[in-house]
């Protein structure tokens, strides 16, 4: 088993340490609220919580610029929020409202924000990988310097799509960052019971690709590893497989009775909580006073209340529009049309610059 990269940066030396903490906390509290709203029947369908894994999304998004692209899974609230999709848009989506980031058509598993180059939650395990490869191919063919980051779980590694996509990306030296969020379970099946080779990053060698494992509970370690990987990719050395070793604290979905794992195991991992530990480090280093923490909690809570209020207040898509958005409305010849995702950001309020910029949630 390959050694995990851990961070050797001290928490305090990070220029936006508090912003990192804030993002992780926002995701955590957002999801806790979502779970609550699910039990009272405001949110329906499948709801897969990312709680415990926040350091991966938050660490990775620090490195990705607005120009870069994200492809994610059904467990994507964390990626969406860390990418800067307004929590209100995510919450409204889960309420099924027309002000949701996918107009209520997608729900929790299908958050989209093309303006932010967030190409969706995909609910078919492994289904996003080929699409990420294609986005990267388009970038390469058009001489754009973007990196496409593709998040997926350890379970997705079992699918043929993983194999085919990694081969294709490596063969064509495409700028894809494959981020495997190894939370040790594919639904209820432990890693050692679904993969013969449990050292996931090592599979990169089967494609002559670089791979590395990182402590996915350590936001700074993730950020550093993603930074190295993205530098490599931008330098033209082709795709990279990063395995973030992490853990899901909650059930797989709201239906899961968790018969397959020990409470003790969960407790053990909870002691590695990415938020608590990072906060503790900051505190120890004198970078987080009790008042700061209170302020964080308060402002996060306020943001979530606003999101819920916006979702509550949002309109329902009229039922007469049922058949909308199956086909693109005719606008004369599509040949001259701007490539999708490169037009003006039309989905949301913020416009997206084509110049690299940090994730909008980071307020250094």
């Amino acid at each position, binding site marked *: 088993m390959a050694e995990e990269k851990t961070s050797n940066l001290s928490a305090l030396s990070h220029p936006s340490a508090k912003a990192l903490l804030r993002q992780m906390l926002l995701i955590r509290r957002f999801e806790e609220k979502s779970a609550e709203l699910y039990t009272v029947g405001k949110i329906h*369908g*499948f709801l897969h919580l990312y709680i415990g894994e926040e350091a991966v999304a938050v660490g990775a998004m620090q490195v990705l610029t607005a120009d870069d692209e994200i492809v994610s899974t059904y467990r994507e609230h964390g990626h969406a929020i860390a990418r800067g999709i307004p929590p209100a848009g995510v919450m409204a989506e889960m309420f099924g409202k027309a002000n949701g980031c996918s107009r*209520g058509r997608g*729900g929790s598993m299908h958050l989209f924000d093309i303006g932010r180059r967030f190409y969706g939650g995909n609910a*078919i*395990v492994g289904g996003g990988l080929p699409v990420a490869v294609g986005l990267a191919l388009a970038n390469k063919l058009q001489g754009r310097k973007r990196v496409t980051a593709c998040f997926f779980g350890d379970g997705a590694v079992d*699918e043929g799509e993983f194999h085919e996509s990694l081969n294709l990306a490596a063969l064509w030296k495409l700028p894809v960052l494959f981020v495997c969020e190894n939370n040790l379970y594919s639904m209820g099946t432990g890693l050692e*019971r*679904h993969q013969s080779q449990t050292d996931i990053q090592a599979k990169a060698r089967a494609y002559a690709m670089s791979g590395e494992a990182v402590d996915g509970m350590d936001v700074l370690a993730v950020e550093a590893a993603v930074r190295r990987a993205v530098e490599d990719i931008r330098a033209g050395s082709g795709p990279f497989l990063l395995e973030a070793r992490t853990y899901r604290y909650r059930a797989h979905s709201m239906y899961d009775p968790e018969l397959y794992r020990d409470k003790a195991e969960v407790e053990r991992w909870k002691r590695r909580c990415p938020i608590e530990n990072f906060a503790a480090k900051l505190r120890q280093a004198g970078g987080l006073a009790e008042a700061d923490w209170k302020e964080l909690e308060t402002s996060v809570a306020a943001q979530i209340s606003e999101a819920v209020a916006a979702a509550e207040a949002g309109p329902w*898509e009229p039922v007469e529009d049922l058949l909308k958005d199956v086909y693109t409305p005719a606008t004369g010849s599509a040949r001259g049309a701007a490539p999708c995702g490169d037009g003006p950001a039309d989905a949301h309020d913020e416009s997206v610059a084509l110049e690299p910029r940090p994730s909008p949630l980071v307020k250094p």
Partner: protein
Amino acid sequence: MTTMTYREAVRSALREALRNDERVFLMGEDVGRYGGAFACSRGLVEEFGPERIRDTPLSESAFVGAGIGAAIGGMRPIVEVMTVNFSLLALDQIVNNAATLRHMSGGQVSIPIILRMATGAGRQLAAQHSHSFEAWYAHVPGLTVLAPATSQDARGMLLAALDEPDPVIIFEHAMLYPQEGEVDEQAPPADIRRAAVRRAGGDLSLITYGGSLGKTLLAALELAKLGIESDVVDLRVLRPLDTDTILESVSKTHRAAIVDEGWRTGSLAAEVSAQLMERAFYELDAPVARVCSAEVPIPYAKHLEDAALPQIATIVRAGRELCAKNE
């Protein structure tokens, strides 16, 4: 007679099959420790062990193919594909191996595999998780396709499928799992050649299957209040279709509507309609109607999902229109 949920009925059949025949094993994603995505196999790994209640990696093509190989090798695999949505990833194995190897080898192999999968919409799972591809499987020679709609059939048809020497696909509509029904656990394996008339009425034939049976029966009650008495035909077997039972009903009622959760164009309902065209044309007092899903990826929001799927009200409307015509 015992009252049990559809889910319990499936489990009861699985348990019986596993007890009676050591060649039987259950394989699929999370069928073991997790207990099955729909809890159909909860408790079975404790009783039968992980060799016979076999968790698989997320590799639909490989584990379905492995089921095919194991069936050729003398086992009686029951493979759970979790949902029809994911079965697309295994479709090549199903079409090009399971359905085909027997013929292509000149009859040298039989492939007694059972593929169980949940199907259908209704739980706000959005487009990728709400498919109904029963019609696709019913298109393929070499397959037998079943759609049990009651607890009794969930049990009895699974047991009957184990007697088939060739591949059987069983569609379990996800909305049915918690539904309760009477089950006779002493009953012999169900007849898997015939459709069933679930309600008799002389004015109209409502033809349906699987998850739409309940809605159709309720619609029949509504129609009865309006003075229209309906036969409700539960197809049960989607391949080969029991056209005789359908024809018998339509020869009596002279009017028919088919209720099918598949998208309208290219639905299984189209096939039933075409067969009525061919074999009951001169019996019909009005054109056969279809009540199907709208031509849209099933949306997440409840009001939109509801609008996309066949509903009691749309069935009633179709029934009324049919009976208004040509009177």
